[in-house]
């Protein structure tokens, strides 16, 4: 049962394979599933709406070959080789997470196949000199900077920043950059502590954090600890003017889990339903718009996934990675990975996910912008950057006591 996508009408069209090791089981299975659907949507668009990839006088249909990497680094390597050697795939969508991407990189590099990272945010992947590895999502260093910009612009008085985050390489990269950026903006870091993975109780840390009397808190790491952090801030009634948490708030499950405690909590997201990326916006910037519009994307996503679950940013990232290959292949008019890699250096386009442009030197994403979301009255609003925003920031956020009285972060 090879998982492939077949389109019947044009039997003459040649098939071009994209390949992906996906985390369908294990700790990243949530993200893996979203990524798969996102890729399938993009491919569907390429084949059915766009009419396949036109390279010279040939038209290619794109098909996806994917396997489950079980979020396991040993499996990833085997799968990359299988994709490259047995399935003849030249365009690989990298596995989820920085670690797995790094594990896959030497094999891809040696086989000379392209690898496009849609789930590995760490900057250092792109500091290792892998020519064939490029990035679609914004790197870790960008995650919390937008939030700080926002705070500075709405409340120049807020000075005291507390950082409390999970101790892993990703969060460290995020907060190292955020800390430096905060100082540049004139903030003072009054608290900077980590907690290990798998904690059940942050009270000792929060005790200390409260004593530092911060104005704003930035923190988090993954889903579980992000939820725990907010839940315990509420338990211990630690009130600040704004909170931005990595990763967790971007998912609907965050609000489901925390209810009104989530009101006013912010978080960075690679993408969010409702962002104002579209053909108009592209035209303003003078670049191409490529791929489905947001409405098309949502519609096709529903078809592909067969659920009512809205796409998360993982889906959009993955779709954008697929689209970037397609766009670059058409630009290069070649399916040779070297030519395509060359073309990727020069392209700049917009998709449902936003702008795509890489640094030619490292392959790192530099075109795409993070957005900041905030939970307001039970919905996720985009509050930053102003160009993408669909709501004003609610600042300062309601206190925990106010929220218990039923106050929401709406005016």
């Amino acid at each position, binding site marked *: 049962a090879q998982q492939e996508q077949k389109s019947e009408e044009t039997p003459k069209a040649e098939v071009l394979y994209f390949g992906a090791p996906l985390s369908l089981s294990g*700790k990243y299975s*949530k993200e893996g599933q979203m990524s798969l659907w996102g890729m399938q949507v993009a491919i569907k668009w390429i084949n059915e709406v766009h009419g396949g990839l036109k390279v010279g006088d040939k038209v290619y249909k794109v098909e996806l070959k994917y396997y489950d990497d079980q979020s396991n680094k040993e499996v990833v390597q085997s799968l990359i080789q299988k994709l490259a050697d047995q399935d003849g795939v030249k365009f690989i969508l990298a596995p989820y997470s920085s670690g797995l991407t790094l594990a896959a990189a030497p094999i891809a590099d040696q086989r000379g196949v392209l690898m496009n990272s849609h789930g590995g945010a760490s900057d250092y992947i792109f500091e290792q000199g892998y020519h064939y590895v490029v990035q679609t999502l914004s790197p870790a260093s960008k995650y919390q900077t937008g939030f700080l910009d926002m705070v500075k612009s709405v409340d120049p008085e807020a000075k005291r920043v507390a950082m409390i985050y999970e101790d892993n390489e990703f969060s460290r990269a995020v907060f190292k950059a955020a800390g430096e950026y905060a100082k540049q903006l004139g903030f003072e870091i009054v608290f900077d502590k980590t907690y290990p993975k*798998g904690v059940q109780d942050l009270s*000792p840390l929060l005790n200390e954090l409260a*004593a530092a009397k911060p104005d704003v808190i930035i923190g988090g790491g993954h*889903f*579980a600890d992000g939820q725990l952090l907010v839940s315990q801030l509420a*338990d*211990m*009634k630690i009130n600040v003017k704004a909170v931005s948490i990595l990763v967790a708030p971007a998912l609907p499950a965050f609000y489901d889990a925390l209810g009104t405690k989530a009101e006013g909590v912010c978080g960075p997201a690679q993408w969010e339903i409702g962002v104002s990326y579209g053909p108009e916006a592209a035209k303003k910037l003078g670049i191409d718009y490529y791929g489905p519009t947001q409405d098309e994307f949502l519609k096709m996503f529903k078809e592909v996934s067969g659920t009512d679950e809205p796409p998360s940013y993982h889906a959009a990232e993955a779709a954008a990675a697929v689209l970037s290959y397609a766009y670059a292949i058409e630009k290069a008019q070649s399916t040779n990975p070297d030519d395509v890699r060359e073309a990727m250096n020069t392209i700049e386009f917009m998709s449902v996910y936003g702008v795509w442009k890489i640094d030619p030197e490292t392959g790192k994403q530099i075109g795409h912008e993070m957005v900041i979301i905030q939970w307001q009255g039970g919905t996720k609003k985009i509050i930053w950057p102003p160009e993408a925003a669909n709501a004003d920031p609610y600042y300062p956020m309601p206190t925990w006591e106010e929220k218990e009285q039923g106050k929401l972060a709406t005016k």
Partner: protein
Amino acid sequence: MVGDHLVSNLFYGALLGSVYGVATMGLSMIFGVLRIVNVGHGSFVMVGAFTAFWLFTLYSIAPILSIPVALIFGIALGFVIFQAVMKKLVDAPELSTLLATFAIGVFIEETAKFIWGSDYVGFSWDIGTLYLGSITVPYTKILAFVASTIIAGLLYLWFTKTKLGKAIKAVVEDRDGAAVCGIDVNRIFTLSFALGIGVTVMSGVLVTLFVPVGINVYMGADYTLRAFVIAVLGGLGSPWGAFIAGFLFGLFENGSYTLLGMIPGVEPFALTRFVAFVFLLVILLVKPTGLFGGEE
């Protein structure tokens, strides 16, 4: 100030520790009677957490009321697993049961993922907050503590005072000997396993009372690891010892934070774990069978 922190951290540690304790008792019980090392332990905690979550989300049943439901559900689950798999391995080498429990754990997680998806879910059940000097703590956590302590006490009484409890001990010591006394050895095995799983699933409810968020099908791994350590600290096969050890472990983990926080240039939270494990090793060196363990 440091003193304040220490007091409140110890308080939080005690609450946490009681939950750790109950979340270990089932593991200890199963090991004690059947010599089965349940490496799938955490997946049963997870099942309990989801039980509380769904009962609350779908039927608004307060988590505290889910405790008996989870116990019964867990016992049923344990019963089925024992009859289907473990029964056949009672006489097999000890470690082969470890393979089986590993596979069962994986199976439960993946089945759960199939049914419940891989989201991180949670709920909030607010019943107010206790303010006590420097301590601010929601009543749900106090409730988790009280419930844990009562459960542990009841289990202790059951084990030491009832006939069935004694029969279990007899089976542990000599199976054939128990049979000639008229004890149904198979029933004791089934019962102990089912009850061990039941207590574990039930502890999942307590865990969610304590931490009502971050409930996920893969949440169990951390509990397995910690339960192992606590079970040994308390003396394997001694559920009561497990409870006390859990309590100490919680105190130690949170309490040492205050002190380690004073060392510059380190991550105190990670070091609390380090210190807790050093504590374990030291205890074992002094008393090689744990705090409350008999001879091995």
